[in-house]
């Protein structure tokens, strides 16, 4: 990233940035209006009604409880209330967009650890304190922390979300401008909190494909997850093929995002959080028809390993797998790029 010495306003490099900036402009205008109004009235009254010996202003009786006073009180309560409801609704609608990743999002995994960001791509590529993303694609980050609470913040995208230990949180954005932008840890995490920074590189589709092609040589996340699955011996009880069912533990094929009936009769959805809990605290939710025989794998799997395992389980559910495999739709991306009029040979990492 080229260092700059001065800046007044952040780069706007995501699909949501323009909306947030418009909302901000509205708030600034409303605030400026009321601040200047109050400042003007205070200065004007202090001068107009300044103390002058012997001069007592006429009509010094209204104390706000007359009819006129009551009308005034109602006016200056209702107008701010109305304006603030507009502020609330506008802000809430943007938040709803921000908190719901689109279904076609490409997923990237982030693990926070004091004091670095570890990034894992589905295709296998791994990065530290850097994140390469393609332009004009919806990108969903699934994030967790290995220790304390962090927060993955990208001001140029106007987005951030806390990264919690023991839990997955998500954040999504659609980069719209090639370049390099700051990643900050925004939740205080100890000594080198201000060193927990990185750079997100927005690449056009061709550059992104080239970058991906360099690869990691370790296979995709799901493939690495399968290796881990075998290494930990999960397959001894969990058959992962539909026709190889031995009955000691639930079959994992097709389980992801589907309803699971539990021993106590309740049902739950087998999402990431459920799979993670079942590996670390197997006794927490027992599937109906099975015994509480699984040992805990807490302490045996890193957070990154857990993400790979989950990717493997996901890959056993064909429809999910095809919807989320990232680089399989180059046509749409190229089309989107042409539409946006981007230069496909824009050098990566330079503004």
């Amino acid at each position, binding site marked *: 990233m080229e260092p700059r*010495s001065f800046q007044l306003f952040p780069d706007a490099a995501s699909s949501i940035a323009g909306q947030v900036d418009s909302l901000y402009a509205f708030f600034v205008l409303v605030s400026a209006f009321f601040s200047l109004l109050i400042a003007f009235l205070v200065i004007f009254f202090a001068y107009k009604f300044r*103390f002058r010996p012997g001069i007592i202003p006429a009509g010094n009786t209204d104390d706000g409880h007359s009819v006129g006073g009551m009308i005034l009180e109602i006016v200056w309560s209702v107008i701010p209330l109305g304006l*603030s409801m507009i502020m609330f609704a506008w802000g809430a609608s943007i938040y709803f967009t921000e908190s719901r990743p689109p279904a076609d999002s490409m997923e990237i995994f982030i693990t926070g650890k004091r004091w670095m960001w570890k990034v894992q791509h589905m295709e296998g590529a791994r990065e530290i304190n850097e994140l390469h993303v393609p332009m004009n694609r919806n990108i969903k980050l699934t994030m967790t922390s290995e220790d304390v609470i962090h927060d993955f913040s990208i001001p140029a995208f106007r987005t951030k979300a806390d990264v919690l230990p023991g839990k997955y949180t998500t954040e999504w954005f659609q980069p719209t401008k090639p370049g390099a932008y700051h990643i900050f840890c925004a939740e205080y995490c100890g000594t080198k909190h201000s060193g927990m920074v990185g750079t997100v590189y927005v690449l056009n589709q061709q550059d992104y494909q080239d970058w991906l092609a360099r690869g990691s040589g370790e296979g995709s996340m799901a493939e690495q997850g399968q290796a881990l699955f075998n290494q930990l011996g999960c397959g001894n009880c969990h058959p992962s093929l539909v026709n190889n069912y031995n009955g000691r533990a639930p079959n994992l094929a097709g389980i992801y995002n589907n309803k699971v009936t539990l021993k106590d009769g309740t049902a739950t959805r087998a999402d990431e959080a459920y799979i993670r809990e079942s590996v670390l605290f197997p006794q927490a939710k027992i599937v109906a028809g099975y015994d509480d025989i699984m040992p805990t794998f807490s302490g045996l799997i890193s957070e990154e390993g857990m993400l790979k395992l989950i990717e493997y389980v996901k890959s056993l559910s064909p429809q999910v797998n095809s919807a989320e495999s990232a680089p399989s739709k180059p046509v749409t991306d190229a089309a989107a790029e042409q539409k946006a009029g981007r230069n496909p040979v824009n050098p990566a990492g330079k503004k």
Partner: protein
Amino acid sequence: MITATAPAKTEVNYLNCEHGLKSWLLTGDHKRIAVMYLIVVTVFFFMGGLYAAGIRLELATPAGDLFDSNTYNKVFTMHGVLMIFFFLIPSIPATLGNFLIPLMVGAKDLAFPKINLLSLYIYAVGACFTLWALISGGVDTGWTFYTPFSSSYSNGYVITVGLGIFINGFSSILTGLNFIVTIHRMRSPGLKWFRLPLFVWAHYATSIIMILGTPVIAVTLFLLVLERGLHIGFFDPAYGGDPVLFQHMFWFYSHPAVYIMILPSMGVISEVISTFSSKKPFGYTFIAFSSVAIAVFGFLVWGHHLFVASQSTYAGLVFSILSYIVAIPSAIKVFNWTATMYNGRVRLTTPMLYALGFIGLFTIGGLTGLFLASMGLDVHLTDTYFVVAHFHYVMVGGAILGYLAGIHFWWPKMFGVMYPETPSKISAWLVFLGFNLTFFPQFILGYMGMPRRYHIYPPEFQVFNVLSSAGASILGIGFLLPAIYLTWSLKYGKPAGPNPWGSTTLEWQTASPPPPTNFDVTPVITKEAYDYSHEEVLDIG
């Protein structure tokens, strides 16, 4: 307005009625306890200020060249802990509130004088714990103590500071209890609720928060101490806890605590603006009830601190809309104060300058709070310098300017002397200008994305940080001046007389400084607090 005859020729007052250290340390007189509180909170204010100076010096350059990261983190933590728990929360209630509430309700003392003294000693014990932690090596969690960092990872003296704040909380609870009982039970004959000064209403609302909210922070910090000391899992997922639970519990107190800091200041502003406009506050009942509304609704908005902390979207919606509702009573107050000046006889004395400064800065502080209550904007702004700027506008521009307005307003009553006019007006202007130069640039930094609690920052943020540090030096001088001329006035100040400002409220109807039992005869109240229809306005200011 009252039957009590003002200053008796006898020179006996609460300051000279007894002598010796013991007569102070064992006193039950609310006025002496207030003066002792004044001394200790001033010491903590300047300690907190020194830490602030350290922060601003470090941030003048993007590199970490003054402190190492660990030290910097301890510096901003101690700045926050000292300023919030040991200065802002006790500041106005324990000094001005303690001194004035019995005088304003026409009582000889608070309802429980010994409990009042006890609260001072509890505060002192809590402060000793905190100072001990500071001397031993400090603490680096930030004043928010977020788990699991504070419970399992920090190397600082978390338990010691946690216990210090835990203990200090009881001082706050006892003060609130004393105020509520006094206001209910000890009003003079004829002093109906709607004849009470707005300062008393504001303290009544504050006391409600103190006794209902403070136990929650005590419990929260106690659980934190248990988890850190005995590894009992409440918050750390490694022990089966939930880290976000801590934030819910912490902000359940700490958001209302903001109103503990600002409501008493609002009470001061109502008195100062009324006196120096020689007019009853416009919309007295609206101002009075808005204080109570703020205290009640203030308990329902804590979740706006958790919009990015994995809170459910729908919970976020509720907290967001309630945060807008709680802003309305504050807006009503600002409009009513402004309207009070209309058709008044405005005198720009030092307390009035501070009060008008309060209106301006609190307005900006309140309006920028709306930005953060908006969920879509908060995602971008939270944990950035925008938040830092916002709460300093409320807590320094609001709470501290109100405190200074109050100190300058009632100094003649507390010590019977006037301070010099010119340096005090200069200090008011320096504080106002220095404050804006310090904190306005931080709004811009925040929108650009500069995160809070960053020791080292990217170079494009430097220009506004330099402006901010420059402003802080002006602000520092503005705060030091009153310490000098107010101390000077104790020996050399001109006698003030009972009512130097021509105010109508009850505390000005007795001698300055007041006699040990406040009034020679129990006052009988026949009118409301602000009856300026027949008052001769003094030509001062």
